[in-house]
Structure formats: structure tokens, C-alpha cells
């Protein structure tokens, strides 16, 4: 059974059961259960807050820094944990894939969905932090659902890509870890895109124009910018950014889907 869109949709019950099972097993294994989904982003945020604002004393540009950093950490964490899981999921399910005919695309999709649910818990932390920091959470919040959709589409596309290459290439997972670490610092996570603009302007010449544009080729730069517009600046996301994000996220999904479908049944021979 191929992983065509129609076949996956026809098996939506499988998607639901697998996602629920994944969430249930994760919350049963650890004693704190689903509380981890809240503690995890909280701890990450505290670490960067202490290091950047406390030790380096660089937080005032982006005060309140905890909100600023959470806007980046949450979608980034959804991305990295989904990709990590997707890269190994086909290999881990080898015996299952070889004994039951089902659209294997359900496996990476489920990983992304389960982690998206964690992400929603993380958003609660972001809401609470913004509220404590006294930020005016206003009309900009109506953009959040749309941002979430684009995030899901983007992460799904990249995860499908990584899932089939993870089955084909032995050491992809380790390699991916390094790529994502570089990606973290190249994305405006600890800093804002405004700092990139400022520094490029200082450099002058063609770099002043092109360096920020180069940065925006990274869909996470755009996505994180969107989160910050919603929570940090309480303003509307620029239309160009929406356009950019649409092209980037649906482009990623299209590519991931095509590549996955190409390797779909062939991958089984490699497992």
C-alpha cells in the first residue's frame, strides 16, 4: 500500500491511534508524565535567560527576554524533536513494515503530530510567561492559528524528507544533529532579525541588502519572526512574511511528499 495522500487520509484512524498511543506511552514511561511537556520548555527558557541576560548582560535589547527566547525555542524544539524521531522511525518499525501492508508515511506523520501536541503545551508556558512579564496580549493573537498551520506543514515536509533518507543512510541521525545545531545559531533564535539588519548595514556595500535576505531564506527565521510579532511586539505580521512562509512551508511539504513517495516501497528493501 503506497503512501499516497489518498491512502493516508483513508487511514486517518491509524494516524489517530498511533498519535494517541505515542502520547500515552510517553506520559506513562516517565513519572512526571505530561508535566514534562511544560517543564521542558520552561527549563530551556531559564537556561538561556540566565546565560544571555544574567551572565552576558545582553537581555535588555530584547526585554522581556524570556518571552523573546520562548518564541524561538518552542517552534525550534518542535522541529528538532520531530526530525530526530522521523529520521529513525522507519528503521525502528522494520518488522512491522515488513509484516503488515499500510502506508508507512503514517509513521513519520504521527511523530510530527505527537510532538505538535507537546508544542501546544509549550505554548501554555509562553502565554503564562507573557502574562507574567506584563506584555499586552492583544489582537495579534488571531494570527497564531495560522502560524501553527504553517509550522505543522513545514515540519511535516522536512520530516518526510528526513524519514526516507534516515532509512537509506546509516549515520544520518548524528549528521543531522550537527546540521541542526548550526541551524540553531544561524536562525534568529537568541537574537532578532533586526540585529542582522543592523550588523549588515554596518558592513555596508551589497551585504547591507543581501545578508538579511539570505537570512530570510531560512523558513525558521520567518516563523520565529511571526511568533515574536504575535507575542513580543503585539503587531501584525507583514504580508511579505506571510507570502514567504506560505511558499517555504508548502514547498517543503511538496518536496517531502514527492521524495517520500518516490522512495516509499523501495525503502523497504533497505531496512
Amino acid at each position, binding site marked *: 500500500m503506497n503512501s499516497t495522500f489518498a491512502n493516508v487520509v483513508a487511514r486517518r484512524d491509524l494516524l489517530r491511534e*498511533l498519535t494517541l498511543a505515542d502520547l500515552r506511552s510517553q506520559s506513562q514511561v516517565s513519572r512526571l508524565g505530561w508535566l514534562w511537556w511544560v517543564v521542558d520548555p520552561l527549563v530551556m527558557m531559564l537556561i538561556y535567560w540566565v546565560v544571555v541576560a544574567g551572565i552576558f548582560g545582553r537581555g535588555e535589547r530584547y526585554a522581556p527576554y524570556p518571552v523573546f527566547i520562548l518564541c524561538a525555542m518552542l517552534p525550534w524544539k518542535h522541529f528538532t524533536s520531530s526530525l530526530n524521531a522521523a529520521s529513525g522511525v522507519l528503521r525502528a518499525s522494520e518488522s512491522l*513494515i515488513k509484516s503488515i501492508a499500510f502506508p508507512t508515511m503514517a509513521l513519520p506523520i504521527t511523530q510530527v503530530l505527537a510532538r505538535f501536541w507537546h508544542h501546544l503545551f509549550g505554548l501554555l508556558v509562553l502565554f503564562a510567561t507573557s502574562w507574567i512579564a506584563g506584555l499586552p496580549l492583544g489582537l495579534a493573537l488571531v494570527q497564531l492559528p495560522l502560524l501553527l498551520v504553517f509550522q505543522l506543514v513545514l515540519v511535516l515536509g522536512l520530516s518526510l524528507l528526513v524519514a526516507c533518507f534516515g532509512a537509506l543512510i546509516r549515520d544520518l541521525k548524528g549528521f543531522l544533529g550537527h546540521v541542526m545545531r548550526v541551524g540553531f545559531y544561524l536562525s534568529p533564535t537568541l537574537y532578532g532579525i533586526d540585529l542582522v539588519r543592523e550588523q549588515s548595514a554596518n558592513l555596508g556595500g551589497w551585504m547591507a541588502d543581501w545578508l538579511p535576505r539570505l537570512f530570510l531564506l531560512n523558513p525558521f527565521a520567518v516563523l520565529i519572526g511571526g511568533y515574536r510579532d504575535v507575542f513580543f511586539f503585539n503587531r501584525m505580521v507583514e504580508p511579505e512574511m506571510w507570502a514567504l512562509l506560505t511558499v517555504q512551508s508548502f514547498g517543503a511539504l511538496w518536496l517531502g511528499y514527492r521524495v517520500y513517495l518516490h522512495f516509499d516501497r523501495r525503502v523497504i528493501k*533497505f531496512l
Partner: protein
Amino acid sequence: MSDAPKIAREKNAPVIEARGLGIWFNLQSRRRVSIKSILLGSGLRSDQKVLWALRDVNFEVADGSVLGVIGPNGAGKSTLCLALSGILTPDEGDVAVRGKVSTLLSLGAGFNRDLSGRDNILVNGAYLGMRRDEIQSRMEEIVAFSELGDFIDQPVRFYSSGMRARLSFSIASSLEPEILILDEVLSVGDQAFQRKSRERMQQMMARSRAIVLVSHAMPFLRELCTHCLWLERGHVRGFGEAQEMLDAYEAELAPE
């Protein structure tokens, strides 16, 4: 459960039909490439050795027949089962399976060890293509058949391998397939459960329209099969009436 048949449906068309079926494995690809070998330029060579696990296989299974698949190890019997159940797609030729297929290929695959037996019934049923309400309505029957008692609400990690196999068999055999594919006949659990599972299997076989059996147990095949397919190194050595084929196969196996 497989993809739409590639061969047009005719009246009284055979339930299973293979025409020029070929599936290859890349011997190199069994060892997957690594980033290092790609970077060093040695990972993507095109002169890799190809092994045809099945080649030019033709046969038909009519309504109501039982096909036994025989042959030495490595003949391609399991690959054939994978192709018939729609897990592998043919690299060459066509395979048409007309009806709902069920395979009891390997039991216990896909259990989540941290979840209870009951939760695993839901997940496993979904893998097999059952809707949630279908599974729910069969839940009690599956639980009762598995004889797991209170263990059904315990995480599967605490199950013995026999208990796991019993649960898995109970789920897989609750389906009502039209075409049944069995790779090596199962003996599950203790003696009492074995008798029960054999009965259940016989019921399933009685209800299904066609059966494909892979086995090395000659008496068993003689008793059940109407036709036999003899495979050797991926090629069809013979296909025809069961007794005739089995006689020929046994004659070859017998020491001179």
C-alpha cells in the same frame, strides 16, 4: 487491501494472478550507505550487484483453492508473500490480488511495550486497517480469545513471549479476510492454546476464498493444498496439482 489491480478485472478472473513477477534486492543496499561513503564518493556507485529474489514468476490462484509454496531456503517464498500482501511492489511484471488480504507474517510486530494490551489492540487493529468502532466492537471477543485475563490491562513489557504471541494472534485472526497468506504455519502458546488457534485458523481458512501457504511440513501441505508452486532461486521450478508437485519435490529431496 492492496493497490488497485493493475490487470483489468474479467469475469471469473483468478483471485490471485502473477504475470512475469520479478523483485530484486540490491546486495550492496542491504548495507545502507553512510554520509562518509557519500562524501568520499564511494557510496553511490552504479555497478552494484543485483539479486533477483523472484524472476519471471507466473501463476494463478482460482476461487476456492489453496496454494502451497514450496522450495528450499532462499527460493523467494517469503518475498512472494511480501509481494502478494502488498508490502513490496513488483520491480518487473504484475501481481493482482482481488480481495481483502490478510497476512499472519510475523506476530507481535508493532506492539508498543509501554502500553496495555487493550491499547495495543486498538493500535494493532488500526495497522490492520480496522476502523475504531470495528475494533471496539470486537474488543471483548479478542480479549476473551487471548485468555490474558487481568494481564490485558498491564503494559505489554510484562508479558511473556507466549502471551504476546497469543494477543497478536487473537487480533490478527479476528479479521475476516477473503485471501489469507500464511508464511510458515504458526504454533502459538501452550498446547491448549495451540489447539484453539488451529481451530480458529481452520475457520478462517474455511471462510476465505483463497489461501497461500508457505510451509516445509509435507503432510500438512498434502492435506490442505489444491495446488503447489515450487520455487527455486527465484524462479518457478514447477506449478500444478498439489499431489503431483509434492511428489516431485519429495523425490528430489530424497537421498539417491
